């Protein structure tokens, strides 16, 4: 039902934009960051993560307004919602969920297709340092934090680096509780 809901929202309740425009815009951002930071790719990774975080804390409002989904009971259902609804609605892709930890508090998303990295070939000096789609990690971190899940999100591998697949890891640190300000 999550899969059908995601597809239904994508088809009928989502305004769409040309994917090449999106891809080229993101590529321009990453390329410009590499120039601005003088090819210090660690800083570029951090900046992409920060940008993604700022997007994620806002994007979650849009996502919940579209889907009206209730709170997830555990990380398993969270992973299903992220993969089948969130990625489907925003990027029209459905990553595979794999590599669950023993405690069921960490999982991997395998991105078979990634519109951010279409037609991208990393320069040699960036191959070992730059996580090109690091904005996704920030988006997930920010969005999950707004639903009281403190998670670490990071890339394990990326086809742009020559790895066999693009794998993103999400690990729950703790469930946040709303606290009354002092």
């Amino acid at each position, binding site marked *: 039902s999550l899969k059908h809901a995601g597809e239904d929202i994508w088809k009928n309740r989502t305004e769409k934009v040309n994917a*090449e425009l999106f*891809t*080229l815009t993101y*590529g*321009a951002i*990453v*390329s410009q960051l*590499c120039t601005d930071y003088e090819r210090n790719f660690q800083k570029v990774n951090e900046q992409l993560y920060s940008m993604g975080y700022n997007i994620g804390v806002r994007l979650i409002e849009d996502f919940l307004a579209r889907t009206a989904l209730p709170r997830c009971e555990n990380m398993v259902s969270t992973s299903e919602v992220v993969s089948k609804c969130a990625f489907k609605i925003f990027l029209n892709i459905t990553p595979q969920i794999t590599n669950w930890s023993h405690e069921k508090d960490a999982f991997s998303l395998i991105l078979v297709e990634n519109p951010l990295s*279409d*037609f*991208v*070939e*990393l*320069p040699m000096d*960036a191959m070992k340092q730059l996580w090109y789609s690091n904005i996704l990690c920030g988006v997930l971190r920010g969005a999950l934090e707004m639903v009281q899940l403190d998670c670490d999100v990071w890339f394990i591998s990326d086809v742009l680096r020559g790895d066999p697949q693009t794998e993103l890891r999400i690990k729950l640190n703790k469930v946040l509780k709303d606290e009354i300000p002092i």
Partner: protein
Amino acid sequence: PQYFAIIGKRDNPVYEAEFTAQQGQQGQVQQGFPQNLKELNPFILHASLDIIEDLQWKTNPNTQSGSNSGGGGGFLRSRNVANVDNCYLCKVDHFYGLAVTAYLTYGGMKFVMIHGNMNNGDVQIDDNSVRAFYQEVHELYIKTLMNPFYKINDPITSPAFDSRVRALARKYLN
């Protein structure tokens, strides 16, 4: 043999390659251009750029006024996006039996090729094959452009690009 180059907007070579057939009809290995001619190829190609630019900016006398393009003459390349033939300029120049063909991308990059002939006679150009070669290389060039880390007019140094262009040359030209 052929000498192919992609010329940038500052008349700078973005990509260069020489194509030779591996085996002749009787099993003889064919050589490329003679050494003295090989050194002249960039100059011959450069000399044809003026003609190509003249064609590039020439208005099309066959376009009638009041047409769908908004009246008046169009440029050599039609505003009808479905018509890609106007990118291929056919034979634009010659040099002592060598033929020079050209192809213009929509962004103004020039694909130029010198066609040689081992028999020292005039070269016969198969327009269909040459056009198909240019169009496939154009597609490879667009893919190169899509890479955000590639700047327009920078040299194309990718070995993958080079191998694909040579494969297309073997398929269409030799």
